[in-house]
């Protein structure tokens, strides 16, 4: 199975993606992550204005199998939350790379991007997990 993995996104070892648009970062989970989680039934997300720190939990995604923490790819301030997911999280399973985004943050420092993966490294990580 091949996953949709945009070349210009960044990825984490926890299977989150980060799309960078100047200093605004949109955050979600990858196809591989949603496949591993199974049917997602509930998400807990931070409020606008909340501070998130790289590598620290900013929310929870709950599937039939387990509740899993979401880790921030970079540090920053939440400027937008995908409220639609709180009502109906099915987009997380159906379209995690687009409709299923969680939050947008204003990034503190571009330097933190150096700690993230690009597509080749992330692909390697996924193939090792399979």
């Amino acid at each position, binding site marked *: 199975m091949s996953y949709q993995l945009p070349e210009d996104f960044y990825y984490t070892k926890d299977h989150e993606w980060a799309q960078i648009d100047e200093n605004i970062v949109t955050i979600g989970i990858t196809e591989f992550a949603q496949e591993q989680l*199974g*049917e997602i*039934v*509930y998400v*807990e997300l931070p409020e606008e204005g909340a501070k998130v720190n790289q590598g620290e939990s900013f929310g929870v995604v*709950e599937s*039939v*199998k387990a*509740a899993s923490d979401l880790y921030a790819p970079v540090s920053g301030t939440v400027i937008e939350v995908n409220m639609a997911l709180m009502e109906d999280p099915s987009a997380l399973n159906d379209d995690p790379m687009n409709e299923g985004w969680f939050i947008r943050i204003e990034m503190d420092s571009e330097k933190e991007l150096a700690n993230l993966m690009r597509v080749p490294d992330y692909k390697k990580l996924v193939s090792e997990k399979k």
Partner: protein
Amino acid sequence: MTGPTGTVKSTALRQVHEKLGAKMVDFAGWYMPVQYEGLKEEHLATRTNVGLFDVSHMGEFCVRGPKSLETLEWMTTNDVSRLKAGESQYSLFPNPQGGIVDDLFIYCVTPGEDYFLCVNAANIDKDFAFVTANNRGAEITNESSQWSQIAVQGPKALELLARVISPEVPKMASLSHRKISFDGAQVILARTGYTGEVGAEIFVPNNKAVGLWTTLMERGQDLGVKPVGLGARDTLRTEMKYSLYGHEIDDTTNPYEAGLGWVVKPAKKDFIGKGPMLKVRENGLKRKLIGFVLAERGIPRQGYSLLSFDNKEIGRVTSGTLSPSLNQSIGIGYVDNALAEIGCEFNVDIRGRGAKARVVATPFVGTSLVP
């Protein structure tokens, strides 16, 4: 796909599961399929058509000889003496404190002479030590490694079994069992199950397991047969509020609190732990096992606290899931008697968030066996 590691055991059907693309996990020391196509699809296939389950990890003991009945009466809680040939019963192994060593099924082959026991995979060693230590002169053998077990469950299970095993299967009474030949071997077909649907559990010698599974899959294509993993097996039993050892019941559980008083027959006989078990009931039960639904999203998981609206812990969750049939979060748990009536409300503490729950009648769903 990596194989099992260390001492994890495989069933005779392992390669069949891997070929089907199953996700395999270590469960109770066994390398088992947790899911094939998807938990929800497998669950609903069992509720609407028919599902096939490899449950070969379950344990089988034989209890034989003139002392078999006396031995079983002493070491189990239900009334074994009422079993006729070809009948079976759900029962419990009690411990001296009145708790539960395991739950099991007893199949009567010949009354007073020959009984076949099915016990939980995770408890095989503990159970065999228990039956050996409390044996009152029967010949008891652990035959777990010789038997595979395939469960065929769902509204169309009997039609499939009539095709593959015998046209007699649909006429058999619920909970009855008989020896039937399949492909030159003797299998034990029991009209029992753990899903709430009609069907059978078939004990089959290991060398015939692949043949039986493959035949059931092929002959059931037009009935919509699907292989079902342990994930859906758990959601199916949760919708029925069937107990799972390690969740609803364990060494410290009193059967009356667990709603299992119907398999305890103290007026009929003496058994291990009878005094302490009855004492709990005489002193008045303080908690009760109930089923509840959540009014909002989220999954109640084992160990989560149940809180009254003034934030006192009034119970604990034993099992919970998103019911695939109802598309609603459901749970099972022990609560204080005061909040155990149908309609009572409380909160489930889901990682610090109070999710409102209401006690409901169980089973949570209607099925082909329990409409």
